[in-house]
């Protein structure tokens, strides 16, 4: 992953003179470090957001907002702290999006003949266009396996879903997951254990 605390090293090891050039170097280094970090998490973060929201555009919006928020609010923090902070921002964005959807679907549900998000996710016609990467059979199997996983994960309560995606799919340890979820490590273990129980019941036969 990332080189730990690159920003702090740059700011302390350089000589005292040449303040301007030092700042420019630190800025360049911070930008490069952030770029490297985001490049490493952006696709996974998008898939996690898509699993939670079941919508491509909403997932992209949430990831983009999380990236900007991280740069604005925590860009000066050591890069080793970024991952849990980034996912915390991401999940806040996901929850916010889900709340808005709920309100919107309730409002529009009052109108006769209206379509709500409960009817299913919006479909992007371009997602059906073949990408050409893997073979069709293998792609189909992978799609089906992912579809089952997505459905099972989406059915989890929000906190269990967060614990499962961060611990299992993103590979965070308990402490990082606790920071990302904003709860204690004990809560993480409990949520994760329950998530595994539910997923074992839902996917046990095929996984």
């Amino acid at each position, binding site marked *: 992953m990332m080189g730990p605390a690159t920003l702090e090293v740059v700011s302390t090891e350089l000589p005292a003179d040449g303040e*301007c050039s030092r700042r420019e170097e630190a800025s360049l280094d*911070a930008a490069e470090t952030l770029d490297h970090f985001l490049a490493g998490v952006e696709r996974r973060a998008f898939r996690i957001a898509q699993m939670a929201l079941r919508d491509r555009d909403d997932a992209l919006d949430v990831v983009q907002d999380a990236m900007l928020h991280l740069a604005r609010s925590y860009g*000066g923090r050591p890069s080793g702290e970024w991952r849990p902070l980034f996912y915390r921002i991401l999940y806040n964005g996901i929850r916010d999006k889900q709340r808005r959807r709920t309100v919107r679907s309730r409002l529009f549900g009052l109108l006769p003949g209206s379509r709500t998000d409960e009817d299913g996710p919006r479909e992007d016609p371009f997602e059906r266009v073949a990408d050409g990467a893997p073979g069709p059979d293998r*792609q189909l199997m992978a799609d089906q396996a992912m579809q089952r996983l997505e459905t099972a994960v989406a059915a989890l309560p929000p906190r269990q879903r967060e614990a499962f995606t961060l611990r*299992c799919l993103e590979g965070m340890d308990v402490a990082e997951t606790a920071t990302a979820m904003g709860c204690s490590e004990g809560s993480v273990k409990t949520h994760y254990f329950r998530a595994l129980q539910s997923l074992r019941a839902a996917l046990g036969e095929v996984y």
Partner: protein
Amino acid sequence: MSEHDVERRDEALERRAREVFEASVEQLDVGTRARLRAARQAATAEIESRQRPAWQGWLPVAVAASAALVAVLLWRAPAESPVPVASSGATAAIDALEIVAAGDDLDLVAEDLEFYVWLEQAGLDVPDAHDGGQG
């Protein structure tokens, strides 16, 4: 099912879930990847602009203020120029008025009035004498 069996099933489930997830990450379409890259670049630009020294933000304002100051100084410079200008009739009158206003030289003027008359006549005659000497 024993606890050990449950653990093994859980580990298998976790491993399979990770595999499926990683595969789906690798198979993201080109359009989504492009949008993620654009979002990342926007975030990187944000951190670059935030960490730029504060004085760089004020640089255009300082340049504009300096240019305005120089323009004002250049505009006002002729009126306050220390370079002497040729006396005109108006400035000669002002000089005479100052002499009169000073008062202390008026006695000298009265006593040597004849001398000044002679001096003026001699001054008028000088060009003629000079012309005659050369002719």
